[in-house]
């Protein structure tokens, strides 16, 4: 059992990071290769300027007109996506681990602030799940996998929160936290989580079609 835990807490972390980054990288080059093979016209319409214009417009909270029609959803969604990256990357205990491994560090979030923000992420995910079940048009599209994806994201945050407070089974909670974090990283390239890569690409293409060909705005 101890060797299993040692594996989860040691090599498996690196394996999952490699699968996550490598998977996305392979996916990216796979898409580029496949565009060159089958749909090279895409490159003749894409421009850096219009791609960035569209991605930029959609990164600014409430800049696109349609986002202002759904302020609650987009408010929660923007916040959730920012925190999804900010919390793990700027958590003091994560930085300590990285410092031990690579001797690099950067400023950390205040621990109690990070604690509150973790609750915000959990609340956001609960909101997404409830919305899936409450709003008819979303419910119509929803399948079991959509809840499963929410579960995959919420687990590392719940276990991390419990581990931080050391309320019970601290050691097991840390193992569960690491394990669920690894699971999430590994799943990303193989699931619709890969929208972290493909969404900027589809946005860039649509932004280019609108900006470069249609001379219209797509936000």
């Amino acid at each position, binding site marked *: 059992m101890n060797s299993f835990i040692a594996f989860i807490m040691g090599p498996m972390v690196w394996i999952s990071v490699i699968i996550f980054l490598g998977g996305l990288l392979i996916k990216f080059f796979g898409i580029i290769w*496949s565009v060159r093979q089958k749909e090279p*016209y*895409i490159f003749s319409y894409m421009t850096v300027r219009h791609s960035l214009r569209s991605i930029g417009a959609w990164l600014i909270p409430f800049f696109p007109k*349609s986002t202002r029609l759904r302020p609650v959803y987009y408010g929660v969604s923007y916040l959730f996506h920012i925190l999804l990256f900010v919390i793990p990357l700027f958590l003091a205990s994560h930085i300590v681990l990285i410092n031990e491994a690579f001797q690099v560090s950067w400023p950390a979030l205040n621990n109690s602030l990070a604690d509150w923000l973790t609750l915000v992420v959990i609340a956001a995910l609960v909101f997404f799940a409830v919305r899936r079940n409450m709003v008819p048009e979303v419910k119509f*599209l929803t399948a079991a996998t959509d809840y499963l994806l929410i579960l995959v994201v919420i687990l590392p945050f719940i276990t991390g929160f419990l581990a931080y407070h050391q309320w019970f089974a601290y050691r097991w909670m840390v193992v569960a936290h690491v394990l669920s974090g690894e699971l999430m990283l590994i799943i990303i390239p193989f699931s*619709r989580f890969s*929208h972290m890569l493909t969404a900027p690409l589809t*946005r860039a293409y649509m932004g280019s079609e609108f900006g470069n060909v*249609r001379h219209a*705005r797509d936000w």
Partner: protein
Amino acid sequence: MQTPDNTMTEQLKDTTDLKKTKATDPAIESGLKRLTRDRIKRTINQVLEKETGPRFKAYVETCMRCGLCADACSYFLSNDRDPHFMPAAKVKNTIWKMLAKKGEVSKDFLRQAVRISHLECNVCKRCAMYCPFGIDIAYMMLLVRRICHKLEITPQYIQDTVNSHSVTLNQMWVKDDEWIDTLQWQEEDARDEFEDLQIPLDKVGADIMYSVIAPEPKFQAGLIYQAAAMMHAAGMDWTMPSTPGWDNSNMAMYTGDNEISGRIARAFFETAAKLRVKRVVMGECGHALRSVYDMGNRWNSWAMPPFEVVHALAFYHELLTEGRITIKEKYKKKVTLHDPCNVSRGRGLHDKARQVVNMVCENFVEMVPNREHNYCCGAGGGVINCGPPYKGERMVNNKNKAEQLAATGAEVLIAPCHNCHSGLEDIIHHYGLEMEIKFLGDLIYETMEKKIYTPGK
């Protein structure tokens, strides 16, 4: 040997969360009868695997089922937010199921797929502006239409326009001599008003080739008269072709008959090349612009059209700002402006259109939302071309547009697109709106200084 399989419905429960579709269209029904299970599967997989690429794959894999596209769609908004009409649901009930079943879908499923792609989507791309990822659902609906075309289950009326395109290179079975007769008839009529006015046919080396869609010579010849009057008053060096290739419309583009669609666009460009014109000016039609500016040229391997293509809105703007046409007295009634998808979202001409309206009219009021975000007319994208059998439901699906129009309180609705024009006219009558509908050219013709142009002066 394959025989049509009528038991497929029982075997494949792929239509459980679909609405019931009545079998009304003879072309769809006789097409479905001919289909075999094997052919359905082969065709769907051929289109989805061979005719698409990473773009389609990314669209399918990236959708997070957030439902935000719903607010974009006129059908959804007009049908009391019924989820079946939401853009992503249309993809779910067609593409996702075809993929999940690897093409083994039933005939009931296909009947529904024809309905969804041909009658419940105007391919206006408004939803592409509501999807945070910019997923192009219109592209996927056109893929479904492509599959229906290959299975020969396209609705009867629109298929007839494609047949006409195929035979005559115009949409309305206009015969070669009828076309020339119509132009000469309009020229003769216009000469009562403008001495020496000409509609120059086949003038090689002219600056402009003027092109229209086939419904103009067929039953709206007055629009050609008005265009000729403007060209004359402005002293333009222009011509119209006397041979097939004069029609810039393209219904095959909307049925997924890409081969014929490409032929139409190619004949059009070749006609312009033969006349060695500097640019092509086209009447107030939206889908025709989409054909010769966006889609038809691509099928013929031109990234952008081989000629400068000028839509009527941009051309009016040019004539008025350069002072080639002057407005004698501005139009008095309260007007509002509809933004056709293919000229605003498709070509960014909405601001020029407003400048023209303000130059021509005294009292302009915006409808809300407007510009790129304007609601679809509900007729374009081939929907109205599916014909009278579907008019009743089209009116239901256009409720949202009727409410938007009514809220303006305008007396005159300007619709600078043929499809929008016809569809909005139906809406006005059906919902009893107190509104006249006009093309922008109607208003310019009505208000302009009717100068008589003499060459050399």
